[in-house]
């Protein structure tokens, strides 16, 4: 008996030892995470003499790039063309892996944690979360790399984008050059505008559409005046800059910008809820607004007058095309640059990259090279698209919009203003974007990021309370008199005051350090 168990134990010990050895073999290369050291001067990589230096000095390198997109059957075809071009320029090739929308939450953490060599990854405040990753030191600091190899990026990308991705003085990601601000607006159905002679320029704030809603109600019994819910319930068109989603605590843009307040206690918010309730009861808002799952399906019917949307120049044209309606957009707030609006789509270089210099050179091209950008955006000329003039493209003959073999979400990378216009887009589209960006006002909290760790429990509890009341209050489907105060009290009991105190503390510290 003794013999037997001794034999067993030594056997199991040997097995464990074998397992340890195998795992060390597999992981050996990429345990360099801790030893990578300063990103800007790794010992072994070659550096060209000047920024557009001789390509012969560079060794070939494959850039492994992950971002969020649906699959494209012709991705390999397009990549082959792109790689020919890229090899000439910087002797690098691209390998693109697209993570589909539904897999973002599960796959990104896995891929980042697996230690695989990734050179470039998408990051934002809703996917592959930017700030937690920076806290985990998963991304490289880009300041020096930008100076050395990304000079052109600095000329193109507005400073606010760079500020939005800078934490404690270090830059960690490069945002896509697109619209920089968010601006709540109403999307108006033109069919009814013509019918009743509405004056759209009279709409300056959310309340101004009330007379029009009244006309709608009186004359169009089976259409809705204000169609909100689903995609648009978070678009509350007021002047509050909220710090964290799902939790009270904002800075009043028009008030004292150093104080964080509970916006639900302000008169403005109470008034908004009261108005919504009024509109709901009068029938301007559909009765099931709080639970509408996919408002786009409902939008296509055209049986509505207005809906809230986040405005970008000519956004209404996209919606026109998709929903087959004629729409106008009327902004109801000033465009505001928030940390959120600058963090919507960024690219970062993970620590596991072996040649960050090459990646930065590639990024430099992505922000300046129109040919490269449009290849990635539209595919191969002739096969996927044809040019109608210098700056406009349309789908190649025989390609049906519903089964395109190649499409790409260009808003996730590079300089969107390089993208050729699609046939039917207005020629001044990018000029309008530039103007929009210029006219935007930075929010008081731009660059401030709140660390929720100290108050995580309170946040979860408050969010639960929030979800019980706020979506319904925001569309007016429950009684304001009774429930607004109840909602505020419930959130207070769950700890909203503690959260606001913590926010104030961190905010003060950040303001002092500016």
């Amino acid at each position, binding site marked *: 008996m003794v013999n037997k168990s001794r034999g067993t134990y030594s056997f199991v010990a040997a097995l464990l030892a074998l397992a340890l050895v195998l795992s060390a073999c597999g992981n050996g290369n990429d345990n360099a995470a801790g030893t990578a050291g300063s990103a800007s001067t790794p010992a072994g990589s070659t550096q060209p003499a000047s920024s557009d230096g001789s390509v012969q000095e560079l060794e070939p390198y494959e850039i492994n790039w992950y971002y969020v997109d649906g699959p494209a059957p012709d991705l390999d075809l397009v990549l082959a063309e792109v790689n020919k071009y890229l090899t000439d320029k910087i002797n690098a090739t691209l390998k693109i892996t697209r993570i589909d929308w539904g897999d973002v939450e599960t796959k990104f953490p896995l891929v980042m944690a697996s230690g695989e060599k990734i050179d470039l990854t998408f990051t934002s405040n809703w996917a592959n979360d930017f700030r937690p990753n920076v806290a985990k030191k998963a991304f490289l600091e880009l300041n020096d790399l930008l100076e050395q190899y990304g000079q052109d990026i600095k000329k193109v990308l507005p400073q606010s984008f760079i500020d939005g991705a800078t934490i404690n003085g270090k830059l960690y990601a490069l945002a896509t050059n697109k619209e920089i601000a968010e601006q709540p607006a109403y999307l108006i159905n033109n069919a009814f505008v013509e019918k009743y002679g509405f004056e759209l320029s009279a709409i300056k704030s959310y309340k101004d559409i009330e007379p029009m809603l009244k006309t709608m109600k009186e004359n169009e019994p089976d259409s809705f005046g204000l169609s909100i819910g689903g995609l648009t319930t978070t678009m509350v068109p007021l002047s509050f800059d909220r710090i964290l989603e799902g939790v009270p605590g904002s800075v009043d843009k028009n008030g004292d910008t150093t104080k964080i307040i509970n916006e639900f206690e302000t008169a403005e918010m109470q008034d908004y809820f009261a108005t919504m309730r009024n509109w709901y009861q009068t029938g301007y808002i559909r009765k099931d607004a709080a639970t509408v799952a996919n408002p786009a399906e409902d939008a296509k019917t055209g049986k509505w007058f207005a809906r809230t949307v*986040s405005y970008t120049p000519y956004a209404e044209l996209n919606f026109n095309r998709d929903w087959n309606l004629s729409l106008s957009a009327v902004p109801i707030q000033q465009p505001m640059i928030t940390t959120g609006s600058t963090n919507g789509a960024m690219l970062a270089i993970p620590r596991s990259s072996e040649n960050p210099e090459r990646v930065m050179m590639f990024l430099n091209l992505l922000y300046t090279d129109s040919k490269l950008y449009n290849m990635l955006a539209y595919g191969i000329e002739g096969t996927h698209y044809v040019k109608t003039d210098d700056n406009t493209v349309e789908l190649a003959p025989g390609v049906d919009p519903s089964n395109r073999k190649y499409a790409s979400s260009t808003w996730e990378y590079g300089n969107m203003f390089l993208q050729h216009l699609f046939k039917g887009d207005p020629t001044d589209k990018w000029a309008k974007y530039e103007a929009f960006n210029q006219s935007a006002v930075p929010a008081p909290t731009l660059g401030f990021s709140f660390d929720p760790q100290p108050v995580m429990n309170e946040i979860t509890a408050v969010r639960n309370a929030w979800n019980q009341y706020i979506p319904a209050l925001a569309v007016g489907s429950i009684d304001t008199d009774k429930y607004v105060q109840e909602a505020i009290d419930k959130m207070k009991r769950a700890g909203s005051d503690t959260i606001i105190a913590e926010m104030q503390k961190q905010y003060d510290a950040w303001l002092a350090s500016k």
Partner: protein
Amino acid sequence: MRSASATTNRLNSISKLSNLSFHLILGFLSILCLLPMLLILSVSLTDERALNLNGFQFWPETFSLESYRYIFAYGYSVANAYAVSIFVTLAGTALCVLLSAMYAYSISRNSFGARRAFTFIAVFTLLYNGGLISFYIVCTRLFDLHNQIYALILPYAVNAFNIIVFRTYFLTNIHESVIEAAKMDGASEYRIFFNIVLRMSLPVVATVGLLSSITYWNDWMLAMLFIDDPGLYPLQYLLMRIENSVTAIQSVAGSAGASYAQAELDKLPVESARMAMVIVAIGPIALAYPFFQRFFIQGLNLGAVKG
């Protein structure tokens, strides 16, 4: 021995009233189960615009085969996904049954020296596992299964639960003396296993085979983790992917920018097309099931009733 008469045996039968009420209740429950499928079928045959105006109806307002035409032209290939799923299920089930049986047989034999150790290793995995991240790292870094079809088969191939099931059966039903007798007749170990032991264990083979084939057929997790090549998507993952994408895009719409989110949503199939996909994916299975049902029930019963 009294023979069962052809007419109803009054001692065993239930009253007519109970019979009727059981039929009604079970019939009602069955219809409840069928209704969602009927709704899906009807939605898939409805014109999209009518859907937007009237919502889901049991009878299509405006008949349309457009969504079926659409999915067969769509980037994803449903037929390809079928092929992948069928291959993975057949290969996976065969592998799973074989490996589990061999492992279990080894640990059921008394004369195997390291028996305790291997049993411990198998049982240990029932209680503890390393979590998703270490699983992912082992499969992609150590075994390089990324984007291979084996990634869909191997992770479920050896399962401690199946091993225990087999082992229990072997211990209780395969008497040591049978094996001794075979040995004395000069059979090799392989011969004993394949020709004698397995032949005597058909019920448990059927059971484990059934369980593992269901696991393989329904699985989409492995595809989500390891497969990026659209040519290797199994059926369930194809459906799951589209549904998840729609939900995900809607939930991030505020942060990413509503017009971009809208553009992304428009690249995906519309409601009726998604329903059509469901019908195409489930339809043939649902129709084939009644034919295979007999074998499933037989297999499950074989193990149950023993003298």
